[in-house]
């Protein structure tokens, strides 16, 4: 049984925005780092980076259950 909500969406946005911004920056910095290091062009074909790209598209797609969908994206069949 779902719990009764204790925050509004606005309150959650206020509470978590800066943390989310920081995590997005970490992702951006990691991708920058991989690309600028020797072998960056070759690394771009790595399956793990394709997973990251697909996960980012999934985030943009909207709808509920993004975390679960990314987990499934990363799961072995």
């Amino acid at each position: 049984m779902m719990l009764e909500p204790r925050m509004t969406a606005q309150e959650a946005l206020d509470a978590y925005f800066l943390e989310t911004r920081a995590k997005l920056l970490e992702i951006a910095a990691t991708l920058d780092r991989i690309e600028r290091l020797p072998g960056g062009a070759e690394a771009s074909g790595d399956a793990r980076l394709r997973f990251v790209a697909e996960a980012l598209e999934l985030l943009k797609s909207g709808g509920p259950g993004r975390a679960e969908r990314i987990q499934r994206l990363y799961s072995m069949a």
Partner: protein
Amino acid sequence: MFIIDPHCHMVSRTTADYETMAIAGVVAISEPAFWAGYDRSPAGFIDYYRQLTETEPKRAAQFGIQHYSWICLNPKEAEDLGKAREVLAEIPKFLSRPTVLGVGEIGLNKNTPNEAKVFQQHVQLAIDAWEKQEATAGKHHLILIHTPHLEDKLKGTRMILDMLKDFGSAIDPSRVLIDHVEEHTIRMVKDAGYWAGMTIYPVSKCTPQRAVDMIEVHGAEHLCVNAAADWGVSDPLQTHRTMLEAKRRGHSLETLMTVFYNNPAVFFGQSPRFRLKPLRVTEVG
């Protein structure tokens, strides 16, 4: 606020961590048998079980913490069937020790056929050893299950649920806790009637925020939270950080007590060896 941590590998922590946990309100810890960081000999397992059942309860008791443990051959070393046969033969005598709650943490690591075979052998042992030793309510020793990490978790959890189903009515789901659930496995575990555990651990498992999200979406029933606190960059207060996140979102004291104390007390209380009872919070005046 009192807390029971249902899954914490104290053999990999210093005694200072027991003190820290006691100061933070931990009154009981349950410690499953796990991989030591290297593959052990059968004799090494016997020493390890003695550490779990003799040394750790004494270390914990210095700080007023009750220490309980679980016994098994962990999934990571289950690939060696010969070793598994030797170690499983020794397990029943440890299951009767006064602080042992059951068989665990059994499960799968890379979802191999040998791991699956050893998992099934452990489940059968939990049934057979209970019949011989306990003669009280319940069909089998309590069972604590490890689900694989990362990309192996979804397939491994499905395999575990299928194997448990094959035991039919010999398995009572209320006496089984399937641990390390995440967003893509929690529903299937709870829908099948099992207890679910969430492990708060950097990178390879869950964060406090995601854990509270899952509690909000799936409900607090039959759900526990733990810190694992093992060999990685881990923190024995992650259970507390999760409670703090729930407080931060405004959840009630009743919800916090349910998740962080009463749920573990109810699940472990099915063992005659667990000494703490669930608590009720009542306002006076």
